[in-house]
């Protein structure tokens, strides 16, 4: 084999890196992540590059990965920052939307089963299944613990599907709902008091910590960030978490994940299987959320617009926006965005709980 032929896998990865950068810049698909991931994929695949090698010279990307990502520090800190950015008001005012967030984990379980059928180990299957939750940090957290060898493919799949939310979800939601259902207007939810918003993160941390302690690194940090936001006396800290700290972590995460996309590890059949399973998981999760919302309508007096079921996956706030866009196509005066934010944040908690259960029992 000639030198040129040996370089083909690296060249493919460099081309993939360029595609990510183009998707990020031109089409604005998750640019904050796809641009650093794409750039890191390019620089680690240039022949002779030692940035991602353990013994390499100036191996900054390896250091970022081994010190911050492989130790699960960055995913947990990202959850902390997300907590500082999240308003739990819609969820607290309408707690039944927790069930939509739970049902949207259907894709996680189906992909887990399918991955085992294909031949992945239960630990690997769990790390692939969690892609269906559409939660990047949780996917990285679980994969690092259970199947670190799949980290690059899983992370890329998770973030790719998050950026493809506006393309993947509408056909599923439209296929599962009728025009009348999409026109359902939901009543304005009640105002949630400051005291409730402060008690919520503390109470939920204690309850979830006792039930699924393995989920505490994610849920605990998420709710701690939210407590800083809602307490009203730590504004400086919550503003830092929302802005500068989150931005720093995003850069480190993008570079670290892009650094795992080295040709010999990434260009495998396994990667293609993971990407296919991830897509299927994502579709099933969307369907799970929509179907449970329809099911709830059989029993509740105040009907729920089933489109908010789309938002049961954790892609905050893209999936809630998708629900709003679909609803306003049928009725321009129908505003369900804030209602969709309830299942959206419930989905984040649901995916973290699912990851905790996998960690606890596998």
């Amino acid at each position: 084999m000639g030198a040129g032929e040996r370089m083909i896998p690296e060249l493919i990865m460099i081309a993939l890196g360029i595609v990510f950068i183009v998707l990020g810049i031109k089409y604005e698909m998750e640019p904050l992540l796809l641009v650093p991931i794409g750039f890191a994929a390019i620089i680690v695949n240039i022949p002779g590059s030692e940035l991602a090698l353990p013994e390499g010279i100036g191996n900054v990307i390896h250091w970022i990965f081994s010190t911050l990502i492989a130790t699960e520090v960055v995913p947990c800190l990202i959850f902390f920052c997300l907590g500082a950015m999240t308003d739990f008001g819609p969820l607290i005012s309408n707690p039944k939307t927790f069930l939509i967030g739970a049902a949207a984990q259907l894709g996680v379980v189906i992909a887990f089963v399918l991955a085992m059928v294909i031949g992945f180990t239960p630990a690997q299957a769990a790390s692939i299944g969690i892609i269906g939750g559409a939660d990047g940090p949780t996917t990285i957290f679980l994969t690092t613990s259970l199947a670190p060898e799949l980290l690059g493919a899983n992370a890329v799949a998770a973030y790719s599907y998050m950026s493809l939310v506006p393309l993947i979800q509408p056909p599923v939601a439209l296929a599962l709902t009728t025009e009348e259902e999409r026109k359902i207007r939901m009543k304005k939810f009640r105002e949630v008091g400051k005291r409730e918003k402060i008690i919520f993160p503390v109470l939920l941390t204690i309850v979830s910590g006792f039930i699924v302690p393995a989920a505490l690194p994610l849920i605990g940090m998420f709710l701690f960030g939210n407590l800083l936001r809602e307490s009203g006396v730590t504004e400086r800290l919550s503003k830092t978490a929302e802005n500068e700290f989150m931005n720093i972590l995003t850069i480190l995460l993008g570079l670290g994940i892009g650094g795992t996309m080295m040709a010999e590890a990434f260009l495998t059949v396994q990667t293609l299987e993971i990407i296919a399973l991830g897509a299927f998981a994502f579709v099933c999760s969307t369907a799970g959320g929509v179907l449970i919302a329809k099911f709830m309508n059989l029993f509740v007096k105040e009907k729920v617009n089933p489109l908010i079921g789309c938002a049961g996956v954790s892609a905050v706030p893209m999936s809630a926006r998708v629900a709003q866009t679909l609803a306003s196509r049928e009725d321009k005066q129908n505003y369900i965005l804030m209602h969709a934010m309830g299942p959206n944040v419930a989905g984040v908690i649901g995916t973290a709980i699912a990851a905790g259960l996998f960690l606890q029992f596998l």
Partner: protein
Amino acid sequence: MNDYLFAFVCMLGVMAILGFFSLVIYASGIILSSSKGKDKGKEKGETEKGEIERGEEKKEAAVSEAGSRGAIGDSADEELKKVAAIAAVIAMAESGAQVKAKTPVSESRKNRGIRARYPSPWALVRE
């Protein structure tokens, strides 16, 4: 445990745990909203009581000030009563104006959903 059975149990587990969270939030919401109602009533009572007390304090201050002035003249007693009565009216009117300053000035504005941040100075003068 069989891995496939585990998958099923896992789904049920997530549903059960989030369903439980939902119940916890419902329960805490009910408890908090009932205590909030009590607090609101208590707060309203305290505000009204405070306004009455402030009116009384102003009245007392006006009376003592008028008393110190009146002591200079001969018909102190009559003067004192007159001044005290006027001071009490002014104090009550002032507390009323303060309360009104926080509410919309006119019904038409209120109907349009516009809250007036600052009442017109003329409204205060009229008060």
